[in-house]
């Protein structure tokens, strides 16, 4: 029996899409119980919604410290949730700040972490995680060894969230013993980007990205229109972020983020190996580029050789028309 605990992320009490996906994954592969661990303001409200995706118990901690200090209060809470649930494995969405929590927790509990899994299966009491390594050049199967809970990070969109038809999860309020050290790093300010209404890039099922071929910052307005028509996020190559056309947080590639959306639509991106290292695990790749020799065409499921400034406007119009 492998009992799985899913570290659920939420925004003001609404679980993130990726957390619903991971609960679904836990339900599909597990042969034991599925529980949720939810921390911070709104955790109790989020707990009401995890039963639908298969969690039968929700371990909740609403301590204000979770939102006032970086990482460490949540580490203490996750340790408490693992103890209370007796979980054999912890699944989490492979996102930077969550990765920090899990990294510290694994060291504290003497266990290990496999990050960025795209598929999971159970082998006895061990989860075997499939993941891309070396920028998508190779595939590997990895598992956590040792006695503690296995920590496995799951990439967004690797699983489809499916309603498990469960009722409300039983809520267990955790009592978390915070060591003094947990409140060493205080969050003094939070600056949100202006709401774009678009999905977060690392979570988006569709990413429309732009590169050097845009030629100027204004090109990202066009990229944004295409992203909005498709309900996707906006990404960029390093050339575009280096040029200052868009914030660094949108950069995809070796030194930026790794994404694996269902659809990656690259515009004016030549496809240097450093960029491909961040996106070639996308399920479907479409390309618009003037340069017929651009290396990115070699990994594209469809490539349009043309001027993106000419192709995108009728493309957006047609997409909007078809959506009706």
């Amino acid at each position: 029996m492998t009992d799985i605990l899913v570290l659920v992320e939420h925004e003001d009490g609404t679980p993130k899409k990726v957390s619903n996906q991971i609960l679904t994954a836990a339900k599909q592969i597990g042969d034991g119980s599925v529980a949720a661990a939810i921390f911070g303001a709104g955790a109790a409200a989020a707990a009401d919604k995890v039963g639908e995706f298969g969690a039968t118990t929700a371990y909740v901690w609403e301590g204000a410290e979770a939102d006032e200090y970086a990482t460490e209060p949540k580490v203490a809470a996750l340790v408490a949730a693992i103890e209370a649930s007796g979980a054999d494995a912890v699944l989490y969405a492979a996102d930077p700040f969550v990765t920090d929590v899990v990294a510290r927790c694994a060291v504290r509990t003497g266990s290990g972490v496999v990050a960025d899994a795209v598929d999971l299966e159970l082998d006895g009491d061990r989860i075997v995680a499939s993941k891309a390594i070396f920028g998508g050049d190779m595939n590997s199967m990895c598992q956590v060894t040792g006695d503690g809970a296995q920590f496995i990070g799951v990439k967004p969109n690797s699983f489809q969230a499916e309603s498990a038809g469960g009722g409300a999860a039983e809520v267990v309020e955790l009592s978390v013993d915070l060591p003094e050290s947990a409140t060493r790093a205080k969050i003094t300010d939070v600056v949100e980007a202006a709401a774009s209404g678009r999905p977060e890039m690392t979570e988006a099922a569709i990413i429309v990205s732009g590169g050097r071929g845009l030629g100027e910052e204004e090109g990202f307005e066009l990229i944004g229109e295409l992203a909005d028509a498709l309900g996707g996020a906006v990404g960029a190559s390093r050339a575009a972020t280096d040029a200052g056309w868009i914030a660094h947080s949108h950069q995809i590639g070796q030194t930026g983020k790794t994404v694996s959306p269902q659809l990656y639509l690259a515009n004016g991106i030549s496809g240097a190996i450093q960029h491909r290292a961040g996106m070639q695990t996308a399920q479907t790749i479409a390309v618009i580029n003037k340069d017929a020799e651009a290396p990115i065409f070699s990994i594209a499921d469809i490539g349009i050789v043309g001027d993106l400034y000419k192709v995108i406007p009728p493309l957006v119009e047609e997409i909007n028309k078809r959506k009706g």
Partner: protein
Amino acid sequence: MRIICPVKRVPDTAAEKKVNDDLTVDRDSVEAILNANDEWSIEEAMRLKESRDDVEIVALCMGPESAQQTVRKALSYGLDAAIQVTDSAIEGSDATATARVLAAALADEEWDLIIMGNQSSDARSMLVPAMLAEYLDVPALTYAKRLAVGDDGSVEADRETAGGHETVTTQLPAVVSVVEAINEPRYPSFKGIMAAKKKPLDTRDLAAIGLSPEEAGHAGSSTTVLEATPKPPKEAGDKVEDDGTGQVGAKALVDFLVEKKFI
């Protein structure tokens, strides 16, 4: 103030990788370079050194003997000294074992601040900075796109979020990991490259840092690779030449997106 910059020797992303029988990458077969993200941490440390007169920067590298090239490269940016942990038993270390070795190497060192890249271009797990902080029992300010160190020993960082940031403040000692947005790394000068050859490099094996072979490498790792296989190369799909008006290209792409059910 003594700053430690952990640096990693990584295979060049552009190089083809071969896998050994024990499922580690054959690092001798590929060109190895200084992890790109470590250039930002080195640059940030150098800026601190140039802004005050009490800063010493020490590179810390875990890796095979051949990683000495990487250490010298790091020193060429203007760092003062380096520690290299090298031992046949460290091969195959996962993130946990890596963090344990780095922490053990610092156990008898005086240090105030550790600045490192947010990830390595080969493993990309982003786990090591927080794990190292946990082993050392200090706070970690990760994914920093701005870093400020006060004379009172305070550290403030803007941690990158999707499009925005959160500002976090703590006291030294601390671990900071940095993202690309934090600075524009310099190139080593000729003088720096020459000086790097003579800078002190302290090479230590596991015994010297108080670890047994079972605490590093495959034996000391909490994860294992069961299988590693090259991905078959992807077949390129249709390539459609637009007619210059955008209409042909747009139509082909819309048809494709409809067929694949994205619209």
